[in-house]
């Protein structure tokens, strides 16, 4: 499966440009709707996919989130970024999907664990050690509770502040920090024995050192 880096496709947009775009979307301007979708879909999908680990579910959540956002755009508070609001909606839909899926066979895109982060070129420059390290980290992240996983993904992957994460998850900032800190403790607890067996975890593999 082909892969993309959402960080490369996200376009910067000023607050004023965003508000103008939203005004046009409220008038049901198809070009503006399309532009708004294209501006946010990659980042949103990256977050949702990391949460549900299933391509079809992730696309369906993103579609639902956009449709709910369009339908309720009149209630959008422009003091927030549109992306924060959209992520809030998507997070709630994600939780519903995960709840619905609970008790059924987990349908995870396992193929993507095996070569996480690997187009052919990228794989060539990734050492086996770095690949195993990434795989162990993501497998551990998948074991976190949904709020902890969301906090970790928004903090590290989406580079959001604790304040923004609080808005997305609709919880106080202190709770975001609590989720983050507990998540770190759990990840450390799970990863430490694996890493101790394989290598010296104090050393970052060359390919991960940036």
């Amino acid at each position, binding site marked *: 499966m*082909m892969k*993309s880096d959402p960080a490369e496709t996200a376009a910067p947009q000023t607050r004023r440009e965003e508000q103008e775009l939203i005004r046009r979307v409220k008038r049901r301007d198809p070009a503006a709707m399309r532009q708004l979708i294209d501006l946010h879909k990659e980042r949103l999908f990256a977050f949702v996919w990391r949460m549900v680990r299933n391509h079809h579910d992730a696309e369906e959540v993103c579609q639902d989130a956009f449709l709910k956002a369009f339908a309720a755009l009149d209630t959008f508070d422009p003091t927030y970024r549109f992306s924060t609001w959209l992520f809030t909606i998507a997070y709630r839909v994600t939780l519903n999907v995960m709840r619905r899926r609970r008790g059924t066979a987990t349908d995870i895109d396992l193929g993507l664990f095996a070569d996480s982060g690997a187009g052919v070129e990228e794989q060539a420059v990734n050492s086996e050690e770095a690949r195993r390290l990434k795989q162990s*980290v*993501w497998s551990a992240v998948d074991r976190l509770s949904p709020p902890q996983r969301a906090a970790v993904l928004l903090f590290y992957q989406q580079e959001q502040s604790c304040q923004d994460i609080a808005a997305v998850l609709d919880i106080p900032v202190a709770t975001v920090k609590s989720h983050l*800190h507990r998540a*770190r403790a759990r990840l450390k607890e799970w990863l430490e024995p694996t890493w101790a067996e394989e290598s010296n*975890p104090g050393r970052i593999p060359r390919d991960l050192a940036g």
Partner: protein
Amino acid sequence: MDCSQAKSLFNAFLDGELNGSLAAEFATHKLQCASCRRELALLEVMGHVLSTDTVVPELNADFTDRLMACALEPARPQRLWRRRVLYIGGPLAAAACVLLALSVFRGVPVKPETEITPQVLPFEERMDSPEAMLRQVEKARETHPESRELAALEDALRQRVAHIASGTEEGTKLLENFGKMTIMEILDSIQLDRPQEQQDAQPAANTSGVEHVPPADSL
């Protein structure tokens, strides 16, 4: 600074919130203590992987087109349920057409997926109990035995009946809600595990720094 003091500052350090003389003391301890250095390095490597490994599968190329088609279609009261049927139904319908065309040549009878409409289930009727709803679905299945959506719905309802029969608090709540809900609302609640789709779109409000301890089962 000793190790326990240093460890209590790991999160503040990783969150970028350590500064002033405390940061200097922490840095000094880190230089002197191999154990803390190692533990912190593990957390930093973990953060590094999480920050830099941003590659995910690609969205389908027609995602925006499909979304635009849904967004611009006229709103219907049963929009969410219908949309799900349309979303899954589009590819299924296409596949069904191909199979039907093939069956003409091969003589294999193939039935397409039944779309759940008010003719199949009386959407606006209120159901007093899951059993009553289950009877409606069973009736619908008699005339549309090929429908996978109805089969899934029947399964979901049977699970709820079992849940209510178990007499848990959640089961009692489910039972109370059933008396007030139409078939459409029950369908939505089964699809989403809660009926009010609007609730998802409420802007986030509670972002203050007030301490709130999350429930234990969410941690």
